[in-house]
């Protein structure tokens, strides 16, 4: 039984004495991104241009208490599905109706398409997350750093660890969010969740991907800016090639790459995962 449905059921049993001002209602839920295709400044002098920023969003819950998470046993409003959001599109997309009760929501929590369950060690991967890889988010673009242009794709899963708090959504609002919104009767409330993918990459260190180095004993490859150096066993330079001329970039420890594929094991992947979890929150606009 869902969190909100549990409350509706309890209210039905208790109608003899309950405050009848609490009513079942709904909240129209929609999502949007931000027109963020223009280059923007990243960390340590990088300039980032995004061409794709897809995120799996949902389920999402609104809670009466100031603290979501385990302290939100029963939600005030919920949408238990998940959908892929094009976070580079500013146009709102309707996701449907949240099942809700009237009252005031003071906190929220949501997942990125991968849901931790109390009843299973394996998380539930929603169809939305499956369609991304499976992943919670896929971001593509070009990072310009130290005179090189690095085309990249970064794909991460964002999921609750059983080592932390199994069964609890990954993102919960905090005291800084100041979330306080009444939920109107008769479906009179609307919630728009707006993502800005630039915030997801605020901690990404693309500058650490490049180097101005030369071969040394023990190295297989070194990058002198865009020039790839393949190293001989004695540490001398065995051969070189210009990655830029090949339409790519010279990346530390890899040499020439046409497109850099990154995941949760890389700094940029960790930055995206942690940015989604604990970076700037999406804007929740309540009407």
């Amino acid at each position, binding site marked *: 039984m869902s969190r909100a449905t549990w409350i509706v059921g309890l209210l039905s049993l208790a109608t003899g004495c309950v405050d009848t001002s609490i009513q079942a209602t709904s909240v129209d839920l929609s999502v949007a991104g931000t027109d963020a295709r223009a280059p923007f400044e990243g960390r340590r002098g990088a300039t980032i241009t995004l061409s794709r920023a897809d995120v799996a969003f949902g389920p999402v819950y609104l809670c009466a208490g100031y603290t979501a998470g*385990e302290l939100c046993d029963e939600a005030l409003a919920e949408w238990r599905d998940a959908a892929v959001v094009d976070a580079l599109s500013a146009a709102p997309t309707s996701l449907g109706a949240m099942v809700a009760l009237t009252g005031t929501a003071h906190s929220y929590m949501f997942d990125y398409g991968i849901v931790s369950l109390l009843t299973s060690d394996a998380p539930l991967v929603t169809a939305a997350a499956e369609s991304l890889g499976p992943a919670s988010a896929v971001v593509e673009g070009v990072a310009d750093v130290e005179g090189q242009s690095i085309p990249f794709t970064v794909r991460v899963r964002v999921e609750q660890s059983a080592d932390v708090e199994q069964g609890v959504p990954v993102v919960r609002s905090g005291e800084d969010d100041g979330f306080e919104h009444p939920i109107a009767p008769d479906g009179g409330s609307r919630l728009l969740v707006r993502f800005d993918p630039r915030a997801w990459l605020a901690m990404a260190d693309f500058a650490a991907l490049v180097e101005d180095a030369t071969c040394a004993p023990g190295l297989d490859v070194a990058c002198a800016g865009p020039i790839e150096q393949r190293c001989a066993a004695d540490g001398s330079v065995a051969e070189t090639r210009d990655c830029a001329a090949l339409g790519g970039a010279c990346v530390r420890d890899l040499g020439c790459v046409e497109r850099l594929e990154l995941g949760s094991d890389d700094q940029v992947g960790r930055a995206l995962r942690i940015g989604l979890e604990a970076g700037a929150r999406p804007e929740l606009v309540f009407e």
Partner: protein
Amino acid sequence: MNARLTLWVALLAGCGSTPTPGSDGGAGSRLVVLLEAEATAGEGIAAGEGPEDIQDGWSVAFDDYVVVIGGVDVRLAQDASQAATAGERFAVDLVDVPEAGLPLWSIAGLTPGRWELGYALGRAATDGAVADASVSDAQLAEMVEGDWTYLIAGALSRADGASCPPASRATPGDAIPNGDTNAAGDPCYDNPVVAFRWGLTAPTALGPCEVDDTPGFAVTAGASTSVALTIHGDHLFFNGFPEGGEGGVRRLAQWLADGDLNVDGEVTREELEALVPADLVEFDPRFQLGGTPVTPLASLWDYVTAQVKTQGHFQGEGECALSAAP
């Protein structure tokens, strides 16, 4: 107030058949509020495989664990207009708090019934904190100067301990790598003791507090009731921000050792401010940071600050909602 509690109160209020507690006046009912420190503050945390241990080989001991705490606020559950406050803020070193707790606040004349309780982790200067006997004049002056909430000093220890700061940020100077690397390929340096001494400003309003879904405390006519505000000492090493039971978390410390960018045996505020969590390979999917009370987590200093904001509990392991900062 959480959703279940909201509903419970609403149901009780709606029924209207519950007698109003305290209709006999309740003169003489009294609440004594103790400060209780989790044993981790005084005893440290051992290395080991147990659920309460630090599980990556490090142990920690604290020399100072001073916190500014107070602003106890109580409200009658069924009539929030009946409220009382013990507003004093004390600076107390948790290392020295006796096992039985330290009685610091008292509120008299409470109406019998169930009361909700909240309190605050404050700021030494802004809130005019008064030093407990466990805090020296010099410590208080330092805390007032920085308007701190916490003064935490201690050290990580591990016989074969090493710091592996991210190579792109490390400043090891003449230090010689020990030949090992971490999962990211960063060179490691022997560093068996990593000290820290931080003043943290982390004001936090906590409450309402509950234990096993039972809010606050009950007062009976003419009786004295004692409750304890419990400050945990181990959240710095949690791998997430659990808001309910802490049984699932792991305690890990290698990330903090790796924050010693110049590998001089001390990890400073400046070093933590220079790093974001993603810079450290230790912040792999074992860590889940989505419940942070501070967003965005723009540095490791923010991360430390966020963790210590969650250390306020009630009656041991009871939970207190974090509400807007005072």
